[in-house]
Structures are given as structure tokens and as C-alpha cells.
């Protein structure tokens, strides 16, 4: 049973560029959430996708956008990259419901230079 997989594992981009990160949820899961983890900090919620729609959004600018596909996989897009966007981006999958636990991927380390 595959867990949550993310690609790529590492990425270096230049300021102003755009980036797309990808996530495949754990088998059987229908909900994907994205988190940003800056160095030395806890993960911060970016947004969550369920039934191909953004269900909830954290305090992130519109430069951060996402998508969920019919097979439940998801993409995170960041436009006009800033140096401050350098972080570990985590994808978590879960089953919709009140009492549910999230399973995390290994993350994509994004460095903006």
C-alpha cells in the first residue's frame, strides 16, 4: 500500500519564476492538504482539496494555487517566486470526516535563489 508520494524531492528556482509540485495521496484517501514548513518552524496550512475543489485556505497569498484531479492527486503551484518561499512543502492525505488522521509525504525542498 503506497503512502503519500511527492515529486520532485528537491527543486531550485529563481526569483520570479513559477513552480509546480505534485502529490499522490495514500491509497483510499480522497482529501489532500498542503503545508509549508520553513526552517526551524512547524508546518503551516496552505490549503486543502476535496472533490477537486479548494475546501479551506490558510493565510497564503493568491500566488499559491492548487488543483486536485479526479484520481485525487494534487498539484501546488506558486507564481512569482520570492526568496521567502524557500521551504519544505508537505503534502498530507486523509479521508474526509471528523475524526481522521493525516498521512504526510516526504516533502519537496524548494530553494529560491
Amino acid at each position, binding site marked *: 500500500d503506497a*503512502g*503519500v508520494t511527492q515529486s520532485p524531492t528537491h527543486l531550485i528556482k529563481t526569483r520570479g519564476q513559477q513552480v509546480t509540485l505534485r502529490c499522490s495521496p495514500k491509497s483510499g484517501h480522497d*482529501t489532500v*492538504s498542503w*503545508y509549508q514548513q520553513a526552517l*526551524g*518552524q*512547524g*508546518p*503551516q*496550512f496552505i490549503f*486543502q482539496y*476535496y472533490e477537486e475543489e479548494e*475546501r*479551506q485556505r*490558510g493565510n497564503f497569498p493568491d500566488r499559491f494555487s492548487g488543483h486536485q484531479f479526479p484520481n485525487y492527486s494534487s498539484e501546488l503551484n506558486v507564481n512569482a517566486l520570492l526568496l521567502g518561499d524557500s521551504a519544505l512543502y*508537505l503534502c*498530507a492525505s*486523509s479521508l*474526509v*470526516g*471528523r*475524526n*481522521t*488522521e*493525516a*498521512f*504526510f*509525504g*516526504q*516533502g519537496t525542498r524548494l530553494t529560491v535563489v
Partner: protein
Amino acid sequence: AQSVSQHNHHVILSEAASLELGCNYSYGGTVNLFWYVQYPGQHLQLLLKYFSGDPLVKGIKGFEAEFIKSKFSFNLRKPSVQWSDTAEYFCAVNARSSSNTGKLIFGQGTTLQVKP
């Protein structure tokens, strides 16, 4: 707004010492509570969770946590740590409401270093 506070940023212990990591949250409603661990180079893994029932929950690798509702706390404990427990530990909560999406609010993490 919900928030989670972890009291210890960096803890250094010798093997066999006892561990207690503090976690307090702020939220007026009912919550689900979690402790996640991140070993060096690995993904976040769930140590234990509390949804309801017995406030003393046991997790993997000998960890346990106690939910004290009156103190808004969910402290993590282990009687005797091992070198392999060296990792980053995160406390997290989500609101258990009708609009709950499972959004997790994390603390800033505690780095545990266990000396052999």
C-alpha cells in the same frame, strides 16, 4: 484563532532519562490532538492521537500523552528515551466542528537530542 505552543524548543537528554514535552493549545471548542515525529531525513509520522475517550493515550515506540482539557494541554511523555528517539516532535490540533476540514495547526516543534 487557533494556536499551538510547544514550551521546549531544544531538549537534550541522556539515554534512559525520562521525557516530557509540553504542548498547549488555544481553541474554545472541541479538538482532536496529535503528536507527530520527524526523524532526520524522514517524513512526518504520527506518534499518537486523541479524538475522544480515555485522556491518556498510548502511541508507538513507548510514547504516551495525556489530554488535560482544563489546562488545554496535551503533553508527550516517555519513561526512558533511546538514542533512536532523536528527532523533531510536533504537537498539532484540529477543530472538531461541523465545518472541520481536518486542517492541522502545528506547534513550532521541539528538537530532541538523546546522547548515548
